[in-house]
């Protein structure tokens, strides 16, 4: 990496207490992502991937640990200061239907980040939305539709359009293709890779599907029970898994049998 990492997480810890019982979700996580890089975060459900993503996005607050984004101490920011940094880190959620206000139109969804951060003067917003929709290969007339009126693949494209609107340095992709049809997955993954090549954005890709990881991520970090148990070049880790968690995941991937 010839530039400073976009995101640096050091010894991040988080636990939840509910009705007297404490669950430790993150037990000291370390990772770093660089410019134009895709780091995949894999692991079984309950391993802490979602908690880690939410901590990085400051949707929840970590208990202790370092969270540096472009050199800034992200964990220390609050209120208006935190909102000012938001344009730099965005997220694409797993279920595109749930990630949109059911009453909003596509145009409003994509326009929100531009409006909230005043990135584009009001007169030019409609045009900016059109450009973003074109960038993710959506027809312009989709702008007036609502989320439930369009297909799953189109919804995810809208989510990506919203995420890139502010030209972020890092996008967290939470199972971006898991809820999509198999034939649509390649299109969305290709779109994401094209955008990365164009803009240099870094991705943190969360996925329980190792095939997706293998196809788009150079590096992978495997989580198990709140810790990163293995990390490295995806091709190597998946070909020769060292930790039991990785091994279980690799063995769990269905394999195509072409003989009876």
């Amino acid at each position, binding site marked *: 990496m010839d530039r400073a990492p976009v995101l640096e997480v050091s010894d991040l810890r988080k636990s939840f207490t509910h009705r007297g019982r404490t669950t430790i979700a993150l037990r000291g996580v370390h990772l770093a992502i660089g410019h134009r890089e895709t780091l995949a975060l894999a692991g079984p459900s309950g391993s802490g991937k979602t908690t880690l993503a939410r901590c990085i996005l400051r949707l929840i607050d970590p208990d202790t640990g370092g969270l540096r984004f472009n050199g800034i101490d992200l964990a220390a920011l609050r209120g208006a200061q935190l909102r000012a940094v*938001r*344009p730099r880190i965005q997220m694409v959620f797993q279920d595109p239907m749930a990630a*949109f*206000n059911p*009453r909003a139109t596509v145009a409003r969804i994509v326009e929100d980040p531009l409006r909230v951060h005043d990135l584009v003067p009001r007169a030019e917003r409609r045009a900016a939305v059109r450009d973003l929709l074109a960038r993710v290969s959506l027809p312009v007339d989709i702008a007036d539709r609502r989320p439930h009126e369009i297909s799953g693949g189109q919804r995810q494209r809208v989510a990506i359009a919203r995420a890139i609107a502010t030209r972020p340095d890092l996008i967290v992709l939470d199972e971006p293709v898991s809820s999509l049809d198999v034939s649509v997955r390649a299109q969305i993954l290709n779109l994401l890779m094209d955008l990365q090549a164009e803009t240099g954005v870094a991705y943190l890709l969360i996925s329980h599907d190792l095939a997706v990881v293998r196809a788009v991520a150079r590096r992978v970090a495997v989580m198990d029970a709140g810790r990163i148990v293995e990390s490295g070049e995806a091709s190597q880790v998946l070909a020769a898994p060292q930790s039991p968690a990785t091994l279980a995941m690799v063995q769990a991937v269905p394999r195509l049998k072409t003989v009876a």
Partner: protein
Amino acid sequence: MKILRAMILTGEGAAGLGVLTCLVLAALTAPLFFPGDPLAIVGPPLVSPFSDTAYPLGTDRLGRSVTVELIYGARTTLLVAITSAATALGIGALVGTLAGFFGGIVDEVLMRITEAFQTIPAFLLSLAFISVTGPAIPTIVLAIALGAWPQPARIARAEVLSLRERDFVAAARVVGMHPLEIAVREILLNALTPVVSLAAVIVAAAVLIEAALSFLGLGDPNRVTWGSMIAEGRTVLRGAPFLSIVPGLALVVTVLAVHLTGRGFVAAIGARRIEA
């Protein structure tokens, strides 16, 4: 309006809306067709209904036209019912949203207040309030709203609590929206749908509470209401039962129409949700 069309398609919605529209039209045009004071004496007392075309529904003990009283009564009834329901929904939605959104101590305090109001029977609460403030349209509206607001508050709070955890609210935070904008645009407007379905129930209850208050003599003395008409008819119940029956029927029909409209609304909303 797609919802309106969907409502009319359901039989109940059509029936309810039809009756209510007639009622509202009659109430609005009353001064046109029957100018003057409804409490003015126009003819001989206790004329039976359908016997004299000048007084289609007869006259009461003092010779006032039942028809005129009925239609003017509709004005008061609808005015009070709709205003008090709107007030109750407004207060309830606000309290519920604040409680659900902010949580913590705000939630605790607001919920204890809501429960306090809920444990007192609504009618008694209204009665007590009126006896203290004296009867007039504004105080009657407030009296009814005081008894009715806890229910929408609970529903709004429950909706907000569930909406808060949804991904699209998290998405709004990630985008960087200000918490107040999130509360209003993302949460509040979506939380309103179940609250609005309560509207019909509250309007119906308000109609009945207003009638009961008037019946007890706690209504506005300067206005005719169906409740006061029933009260007037009490003394001659044996000889001229129609004086109480006619306004009583009007109450039944109105409450039924409101309920049917409410059910039509819920069905229309439900149908749209499944479509999506």
